[in-house]
């Protein structure tokens, strides 16, 4: 009996405290719910953009790329990517395949400053440029590994990072087979190509596509009949990078060489 009496009071107090603190915990939730509702209205850009009506993708024609690197440069300017090597949302690689079967791949500063003619070209058997970026996979490994659900795929097929929820653990950077992610040196959160989502929802092209001088990059709808991307996919033999990984990329290459990985 004595034992019970001793237990009674703490339990009641405990229950009271639990109920009180629960009410307190719910409060910010209710407050934020109102605010979030407001923001979501802005997201739809006053009803001008409905993500469910779109499905974005990109085509890249290797035969047209001249390796000027304007895409990598524009991307850095548009998205405030730190202007130092190693941080790229998009970059251009140069492949040089030599007679002896050796392949050299380089991308000096992501091609932001272009390329220089380096080797004795007599022994080159073929050489070309390959622009690279996040492949916006339909089956994205980076989304699978994120422990806090900070990276996700939108309805229109763009893989994005929630910078507020990202804890900077770099699992996604490891998981991405295309090396498309990096840790932003200031915010310490994962960053990657967003297909310039802020431009796309306003009906503009991604910055890299906008500045490409030879139309080597084609951006558009995947599931509409009258779309430059669908035409590109109809007129070319296309391939994706690392198809064996089953990531189902949304970035399609035409005239891609077997050496490209």
């Amino acid at each position, binding site marked *: 009996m004595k034992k019970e009496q001793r237990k*009674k009071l703490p339990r009641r107090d405990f229950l009271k405290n*639990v109920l009180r603190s*629960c009410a307190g*915990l*719910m409060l*910010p*939730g209710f407050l*934020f*719910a109102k605010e*979030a*509702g407001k*923001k*979501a209205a*802005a*997201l739809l*850009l006053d009803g001008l953009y409905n*993500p469910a009506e779109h499905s974005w993708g990109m085509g890249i024609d290797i035969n*047209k790329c*001249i*390796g*000027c*690197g*304007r895409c990598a440069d*524009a991307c850095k*300017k*548009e*998205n405030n990517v730190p202007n130092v090597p190693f941080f790229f949302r998009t970059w251009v690689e140069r492949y*040089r395949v030599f007679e002896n079967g050796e392949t050299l791949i380089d991308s000096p500063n992501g091609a932001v*400053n*272009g*390329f220089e*003619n380096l080797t004795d*070209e007599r022994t*080159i058997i073929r*050489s*070309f*440029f390959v622009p690279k970026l996040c492949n916006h996979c339909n089956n994205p490994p980076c989304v699978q590994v994120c422990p806090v*659900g900070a990276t*996700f*795929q*939108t*309805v229109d097929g763009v893989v*994005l990072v*929630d*910078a*507020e*929820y990202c804890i900077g653990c770099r699992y996604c950077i490891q998981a991405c087979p295309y090396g498309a992610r990096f840790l932003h040196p200031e915010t310490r959160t994962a960053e990657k190509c*967003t297909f310039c*989502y*802020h*431009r796309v929802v*306003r009906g*503009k*092209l991604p*910055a890299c596509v*906008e*500045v490409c*001088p*030879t*139309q080597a990059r084609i951006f558009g709808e995947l599931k509409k009949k009258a779309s430059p991307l669908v035409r590109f996919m109809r007129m070319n033999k296309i391939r994706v990078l690392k198809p064996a990984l089953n990531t189902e990329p949304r970035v399609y290459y035409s005239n891609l060489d077997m050496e490209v990985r």
Partner: protein
Amino acid sequence: MAKFKEKLNWRFGWLWFNKEKVFMKSWQKIPEQIRRLLVLMVLLIVLFLIVRSWLIPPDCGKYGHYRASAVDNIISQPLRYAGQVECGDCHEDHMEVKNAGYHKNLACEVCHGPAADHIENPDEVELLAPRGRGYCPLCHEYLPARPTGFPQIVSDSHNPMKPCIACHEPHDPKPPETPRECSACHAQIARTKSISHHVYVPCTRCHETPEEHKIRPRDFRPTKPQTREFCGGCHATQTPEIKGIPQVDLQTHGQRYVCWQCHYPHLPEAH
């Protein structure tokens, strides 16, 4: 325990009204240890629901399994590149010239830089274009990896010290004179040929090139030799022997292939 029940009854009596007795009876029938577990379970479930509502952001799930406001943050990022449609609103004259020339597919902002700020404040933010020799070679410097046919120069030997805009108007970059040399655009082929045995064979010996090809390269294409006899003019044993030129019997060599299907005429070394 009895006191506790009374208090409970007074506080939550409204929950069961007259059914109180029925409820209490069936409640009493449950063994003590199960009752405790049930209470604990209900508490845990409530606690779980509360913690869950606290941890999951309220706008999660509006579009998918993510915060709607995360997308909001991403799209609220300011634009730097305006797009060349906007440029044409004010600079019609330049657009007209540009859209008629070779640079018709080149966006204004490639050379002039991001223009969104300039469109907001045309008087305060001025856009400049590179005027030295450094910028144009980003696209037009000779690189073997560039697709052939794309106009390329070797800037070390191409009018050194002269800025590009001295001769080329960037909005309509016609060469000041129609290029005589094929190497102006086909630099890689010219370079390969220059180290081969065909170095002294002019391009036009094999490629019949319409004059218009220099102006509209894609609409008027040069020809390629279509017969084995064309190469045989020098390389067949039937023709008079010329010192140093390898010759083969066309009857037995190469069967049904045209010569250039095996030999690269710009670097025709057989071994």
